């Protein structure tokens, strides 16, 4: 009898231990995918941000003093001049966001490509964002209505950029709807960045 009780006890304890280990294993793999997703999003954001920061800083470089460096300014679309190849002729650089339908292969309904176009060359996607907003401020830090009236382009003193990147693929939950600017139930690893860039060269 004692032997049977020993066996039964061992089986129960063994089963409990197995459950604990399986649970831990599941938790590890779930967390690992969440952390990987978070890291991926951070890397995507930082890469795009570095690119933009570097180029916006050069806005107006090599542009004649009496010429306005910014040619067009809207919330998700900017075109400015900058002599990118130092040949004495200013080039036109354009940054703009595409539409979500351009990325039909991803689960995230809000992600869209961020494009860069030099002169009339074909556009190139430099990143994937869920939000890319620009605000234009005067020297007194007053916002200028967008799209900026061509007569007021010269008043732009700094550009405030807000960028959000979400994971293209759902990590936790399903069936939820991601809302712009918020961490959603479906895409838990959304990130954002805000920076204000004031280019010396753009001030005319």
């Amino acid at each position: 009898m004692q032997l049977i009780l020993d066996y039964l006890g061992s089986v129960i304890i063994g089963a409990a231990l197995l459950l604990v280990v399986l649970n831990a294993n599941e938790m590890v793999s779930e967390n690992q995918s969440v952390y990987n997703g978070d890291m991926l999003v951070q890397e995507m954001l930082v890469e795009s941000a570095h690119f933009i920061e570097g180029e916006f800083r050069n806005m107006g470089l090599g542009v004649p003093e009496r010429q306005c460096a910014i040619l067009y300014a809207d919330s998700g679309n900017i075109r400015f001049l900058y002599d990118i190849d130092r040949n004495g002729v200013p080039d036109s650089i354009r940054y703009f966001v595409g539409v979500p339908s351009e990325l039909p292969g991803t689960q995230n309904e809000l992600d869209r490509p961020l494009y860069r176009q030099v002169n009339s060359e074909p556009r190139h996607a430099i990143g994937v964002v869920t939000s890319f907003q620009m605000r234009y401020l005067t020297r007194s830090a007053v916002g200028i209505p967008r799209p900026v009236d061509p007569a007021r382009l010269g008043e732009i003193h700094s550009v405030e950029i807000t960028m959000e990147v979400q994971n293209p693929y759902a990590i936790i939950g399903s069936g939820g709807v991601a809302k712009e600017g918020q961490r959603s139930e479906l895409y838990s690893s959304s990130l954002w960045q805000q920076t204000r860039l004031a280019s010396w060269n753009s001030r005319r």
Partner: protein
Amino acid sequence: MSTNNMLLSIGAFVILTTILSNVYGILGSTGDNISEAQDMILANTIASSYLEIAQGLAFDHITDTSDVAIANAMALTAADLLGPDGSDEDSIAGFTDIDDFNGLTFETTATGSDKRFKTEFKVSYVDPNNIDAISATQTFVKRLDLKIWRSFPPPEGLATDTLRMSHIMGYFHFD
């Protein structure tokens, strides 16, 4: 169950518990690292924004409106008087020169988040030949030191990371 079996079982439990607690510990620290990296991205953007603003300001209150300091560094604001120049410079929008940041601390809420970050500024004259050496007298080079850390939610356990950045501004002219 014999004593040997009992001891073996207890030993197995101890090993299993140790392994599990290590696994959970590693998971927790990875999560902390990811979260800390996100905080540092936010801190970096806030700090960059301040530095961008600082770069757009004049070198000194006197150089903003006159050129008397071109040949005479002593005409610049004295080292112990660096800071906002008047009551109209009570906010960043009113700042006219880089040393207006001196001694100030700002708290900012990161956009899209309830996290708050405190930024502390210090502006000093530095030796033009050695920008690491702070000068007690006026020179034509100033250094803005900035440090930023998360103030809310307050750090738990270990102290939160502090991000430090510096910006050097010189006052030179070319004839």
